């Protein structure tokens, strides 16, 4: 780990975050269990950086992002943004802090109220948190529209009159309205097509540079995350599998899940594509209501060991800034596991270097 004194400030600190959705059943609707959408997740984000968060559908990425912004009442854990505790803040305090943290949503169509004009959508946060005069407000709205590259003439239009990329810009303008420091981007490009994805990503990058924003960039598009993120976190079934600086993660993934994930991404190059061997994961993701015992990847892991079925691996730093939750790298696991792990590690590193 780098020395704390010369690293940038940690803007967001998450530790032990848990977000359980209760399951009720029976005649009396007693609680019979939980969907452990996010289960004991810890990480931090430095000021001005982009943390990519990847994983398969349903692994809890969105839930994690929403829990950080307290859009859900979190089950447990601490979330600090800009030094202030969020997870347990009272309503008024939370409302005061809303301007510092904002969100851009996955589905640009669904996240815009179809019955509001662009101006009123972008103006809504201003109404909520500022006391600008009508004229000032309009001025600010136009300014924001310029910022995200929307023609001012569109102010009176409705969301359905825009293309997906433009809609996403509206969403971004809304998020920027209050000069936030931290923005959670929940799959902002998933619903867009390639050429437009690039526009949106560029816009986000440009804004980050200009305004010094910090992003949590949620996506399952690994190539795009590689492009935009400084560090990347991989989630699987509600838990962190791996977190590492971008280059390290893409060049030398440690967790078998990350490997599989990376190998599955098609490359727009037929020559490469035809030669590449894919690691195809078998089966579906287990239900987060009923995760497997031990390591939660053990049901699909190509390198599964005996220990994986019984002991849950801890999330540990195995190289500077590189965290993994896998028995292959576990420092304090039992002997049998340890030998296996070190062998596997060797093999693994070789694989990574080949890629």
């Amino acid at each position, binding site marked *: 780990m780098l020395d704390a004194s010369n690293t940038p400030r940690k803007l967001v600190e998450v530790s032990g975050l848990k977000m359980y959705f209760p399951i009720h059943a029976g005649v009396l609707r007693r609680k019979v269990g939980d969907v452990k959408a996010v289960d004991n997740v810890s990480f931090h984000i430095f000021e001005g950086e982009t943390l990519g968060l990847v994983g398969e559908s349903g692994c809890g990425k969105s839930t994690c992002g929403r829990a950080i*912004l307290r859009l859900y009442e979190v089950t447990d854990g601490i979330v600090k943004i800009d030094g202030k505790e969020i997870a347990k803040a009272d309503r008024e305090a939370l409302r005061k802090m*809303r*301007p510092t943290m904002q969100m851009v949503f996955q589905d640009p169509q669904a996240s815009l*109220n179809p*019955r509001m004009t662009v101006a009123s959508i972008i103006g809504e946060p201003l109404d909520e948190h500022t006391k600008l005069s009508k004229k000032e407000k309009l001025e600010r709205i136009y300014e924001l529209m310029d910022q995200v590259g929307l023609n001012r003439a569109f102010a*009176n239009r409705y969301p359905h009159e825009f293309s997906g990329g433009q809609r996403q810009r509206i*969403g971004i303008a809304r998020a920027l309205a209050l000069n936030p420091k931290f923005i959670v981007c929940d799959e902002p490009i998933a619903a867009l097509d390639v050429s437009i994805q690039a526009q949106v990503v560029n816009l986000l990058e440009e804004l980050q540079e200009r305004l010094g924003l910090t992003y949590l960039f949620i996506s399952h598009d690994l190539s795009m995350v590689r492009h935009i993120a400084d560090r990347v976190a991989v989630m699987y079934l509600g838990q962190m599998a791996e977190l590492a600086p971008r280059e390290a993660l893409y060049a030398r993934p440690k967790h078998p899940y990350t490997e599989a994930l990376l190998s599955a991404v098609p490359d727009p190059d037929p020559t490469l594509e035809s030669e590449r061997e894919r690691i195809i994961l078998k089966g579906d993701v287990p239900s987060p209501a009923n995760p497997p015992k031990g390591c939660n990847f053990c049901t699909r892991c190509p390198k599964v060991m005996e220990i994986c079925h019984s002991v849950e691996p801890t999330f540990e730093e195995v190289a500077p800034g590189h965290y993994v939750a896998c028995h292959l790298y576990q420092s304090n696991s039992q002997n049998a596991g340890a030998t296996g792990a070190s062998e596997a590690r060797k093999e693994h590193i070789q694989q990574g270097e080949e890629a």
Partner: protein
Amino acid sequence: MRPPRNQWWDVWDQFKTHKGALVGASIFGLVLIIVLFGPYVWTIDPTYIDILARNSGMSLAHPLGTDQLGRDLLARMMAGGRVSIAVGMTAMIISVFLGTLIGVVSGYFRRLDGALMRLTDLFLALPLLPLLLVMVMLFRQTLATQFGVNTGIFMLIVSAIGITSWMPSARIVRGEVLALKEREFVLAAKSIGTPSRRMILRHILPNVMSPIMVAATLGIANAIITESALSFLGLGFPPDFPTWGRLLFDGVDYLQDYPARVFWPGIAISLAVLSVNYIGDGLRDALDPRIRGR
């Protein structure tokens, strides 16, 4: 460049393009004008009895004929229209307001849901007639002394109809709200820190407009007809106080001998109901920007 203009202009622009709605609106407007200003032109007192002119047919003196006491039907139709339309509109507004309020609250605040839905069951199960009897007995005198006989009874009738007809819309609205709550734009508003009240007013309500419009258009028809049944039961306006429903009801006895007596109020009610329905169709489209664009 145009500054953002009032959204209602957009609504109006779209409304103008809906043919059915335009026809409906013009007919309804015409009916309104006749009913509101007609009495200033056609000045016969609707309760004036001209016993010599009993049961006369259409003539210049009485364009729509007269009733069994020789009262002028045209004057009665206009006076009746005022009341019927006012009752229909007001009762509909009360009913829609209650239905929307309860539907939205129970859909939006999970904690209140169970209780409010049971309340809805309760109202669905209440026998209308005894309930009305009780209401009339308990409040008629007070209201009549407070606001005058006709206003008092008007208030009583519209609230009676209103509070006994909001349940279906409450159920529908609740369902819509439950679905809306899961939509991302609600979450987006939450992330901005929008409080519940504004969340409902700004994001939920406009999006449950279309079932509300349907409930409202049907509600007017329902209220006009219920009012006639109430007058019939003696719970309504004083007997010499004409309403369309009452004229229709009174006319039924004379159906064979003087069919015009049922024809005119029947036509008036149907026309009002139909035109309101088409207006509702148009409004629903006009209120939805997605349809508007097309």
